């Protein structure tokens, strides 16, 4: 019975032990109740600090309390293990269990806030996550190219395929056999500038939705993600054939690349992210299935946050420069610039994880069932 005494005096050392200790300790008949009454003050103080942290983070807790928090947490945790061995007071045990759990969530809570995490995300975290997916990106890229080539080849082989790949209402006159003039008109700049930002907003929610879907479908072993990529790229291939057949391939490239380098890159990444999850579930390696899935899922989630940002950029590019900048050369320049930017940002920026050691330690804490 030495441990609780040491802890009791530790609490006294920090000056708040006698905060609200009830006066009738001596009248309690049970040793376990006296044990509890002696430590109650510390527990209540811990509860108060934890409640304040839950309400408003660290801002509501002053330095003195913050310094006392780890000690109070350990006091409560050791009170719990002593009480488990010596007390049959169910209400007190439940209270301590709840208190230690709540305090544990705060003591071992997130190390940095959202802003700190975002800074790390932009200064290396995003690139790190993309680099970790290199194999999936290669596979997804291969699938996308194959999809585009297939779409092109199918329509080249038989024009009827175009109508199977592309919804006619969506095509808006961009169909095989359309005249060069009418096709050229669809690539022209807008004469009227109003309405473009609304167009951008709707483009963004639509594209971001498709990307999130490509990612989340990876859950089914990645196959639906790949199918989605093939389907979208086959559509593109068909469109290229239509424009290429009247000698407008170069102009179409410019029209597409201005935002397409960003948008297609984003789609590539989201497909790769979905595939990454699916692949880790199909081949978990030495880890358990659940561990492999969650490790892959967290990496892929970082990539997906980035994809949403890329979609915002792509929607802005699609709505403004594409509709306003004329001349295929200028369009290629803008699109090429963004392609170079993304590739170098993702693959040349190599920042090691700032606290990988601490993260590994945190992961080492096991769960018992």
């Amino acid at each position, binding site marked *: 019975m030495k441990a609780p005494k040491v802890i009791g005096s530790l609490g006294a050392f920090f000056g708040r032990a006698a905060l609200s200790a009830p006066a*009738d300790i001596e*009248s*309690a*008949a*049970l*040793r*376990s*109740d006296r044990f509890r009454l002696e430590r*109650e003050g510390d*527990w209540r103080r811990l*509860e108060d600090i934890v409640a304040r942290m*839950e309400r*408003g983070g660290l801002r509501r807790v002053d330095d003195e309390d913050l310094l006392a928090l780890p000690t109070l947490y350990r006091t409560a*945790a050791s009170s719990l293990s002593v009480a488990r061995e*010596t007390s*049959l007071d*169910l*209400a*007190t045990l*439940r*209270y301590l*269990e*709840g208190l*230690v*759990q*709540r305090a*544990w*969530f*705060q003591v*071992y*809570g*997130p*190390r940095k806030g*959202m802003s700190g995490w975002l800074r790390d995300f932009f200064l290396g975290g995003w690139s790190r996550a993309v680099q970790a997916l290199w194999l999936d990106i290669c596979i997804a890229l291969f699938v996308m190219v194959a999809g585009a080539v297939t779409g092109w080849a199918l329509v080249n082989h038989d024009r009827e395929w175009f109508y199977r790949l592309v919804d006619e209402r969506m095509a808006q006159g961009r169909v095989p056999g359309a005249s060069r003039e009418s096709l050229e008109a669809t690539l022209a700049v807008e004469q009227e500038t*109003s*309405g473009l930002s609304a167009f*951008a*907003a*709707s483009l963004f*929610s639509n594209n971001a*939705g498709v990307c*999130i879907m490509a990612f*989340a479908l990876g*859950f089914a072993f990645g196959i639906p993600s790949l199918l989605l990529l093939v389907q979208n790229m086959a559509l593109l291939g068909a469109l290229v054939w239509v424009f290429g057949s009247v000698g407008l391939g170069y102009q179409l490239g410019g029209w597409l690349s201005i935002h397409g380098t960003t948008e297609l890159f984003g789609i590539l990444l989201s497909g790769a992210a979905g595939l990454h999850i699916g692949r880790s579930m199909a081949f978990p390696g030495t880890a358990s299935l*659940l561990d492999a899935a*969650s*490790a*892959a*899922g*967290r*990496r892929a*989630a*970082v990539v*997906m946050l980035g994809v949403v940002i890329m979609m915002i950029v792509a929607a802005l590019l699609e709505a403004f420069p594409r509709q306003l900048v004329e001349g295929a050369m200028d369009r290629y320049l803008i699109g090429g610039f963004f392609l170079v930017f993304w590739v170098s940002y993702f693959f040349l920026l190599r920042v090691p994880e700032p606290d990988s050691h601490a993260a590994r330690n945190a*992961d080492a*804490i*096991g*769960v*018992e*069932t």
Partner: protein
Amino acid sequence: MKPSAPLAASRSYIEGETKRSRAIVTPEGIAIPTVVASRSARVGALMLDLLILSLALFVFDLLLDLLAGGVWRGARTEPLGQTSAVLELLYVIGAIVGFAAWYAYFLAQELGPRGATLGKRILGIRVAARNGGRLTPEAVIARNLLRDVEIFYPIAFMFFTLRLSLMGEVSSGLLWAAMIWFLLFALFPFFNKDALRAGDIIAGTWVVEAPKTKLADAMSAQGAATIEGSSELTGVRYQFGEAELSVYGEHELQTLERMLRDGNDEALFAVHETICRKIGWDPGAGDERAFLEAFYTQLRARLENDMRFGKRKADKFS
């Protein structure tokens, strides 16, 4: 045996809880019991969140509409181009706020110190990392991105195909596909013991109960339970012998504790009668509470004393 009914009822209550209880081991080596949130609580929390979110967005849209209406009426005096630019801005704001609110509502709240959205907090549950480590932003993002594919896309797809098939444009096969998609994910939590949905698996999280228990009074520091305690009504001091205290075990003790704390007189009468009959006392009337408090304290003193010597008695059968 009517009197034993309360004891029997509370037993099933306790055992019903153990099915969902797990233990997280802290770095200090202490196993913190954790209860996996029930599936109904999670559905309820989602419903509450959706209600709150759609109400807020509805009010926001209403305000935006009012604003747009004002701009439209003002259009008679302003040049036309300017008016449409303002309306367009309002539309863009509406679209962006809608998208941001949808994701930010869940992300911001689950990343906060409580690890729970408003709906989860109301129902007393929270998100936690399954491995006992920290709940990271990556995990929260992952679990929330997957929710779309689990619930909202299939529902939207179902309505879409339902409308098309009613118009006779698609076959009912597509509708079935949509329903299978929906059911696959909706029923997912029922096929694993931790009630994980697909997003939880991907993120490495689970949803657990986060009870806020108040510290109850110390039992042996009040009434007839104290050292020199006696009945306030009769002044009698109840003393129980070795044989009388050896009847019950820990389970009965803790059931009695809960009943004393609840303070339901009728239940106390019944328990008083049962205990008296069991230990061979003549059940009197009118002083049940003092009797039970004294019995509780002395039984607990005995059981806790045995506990220190490594002897435990789980219930009256052992």
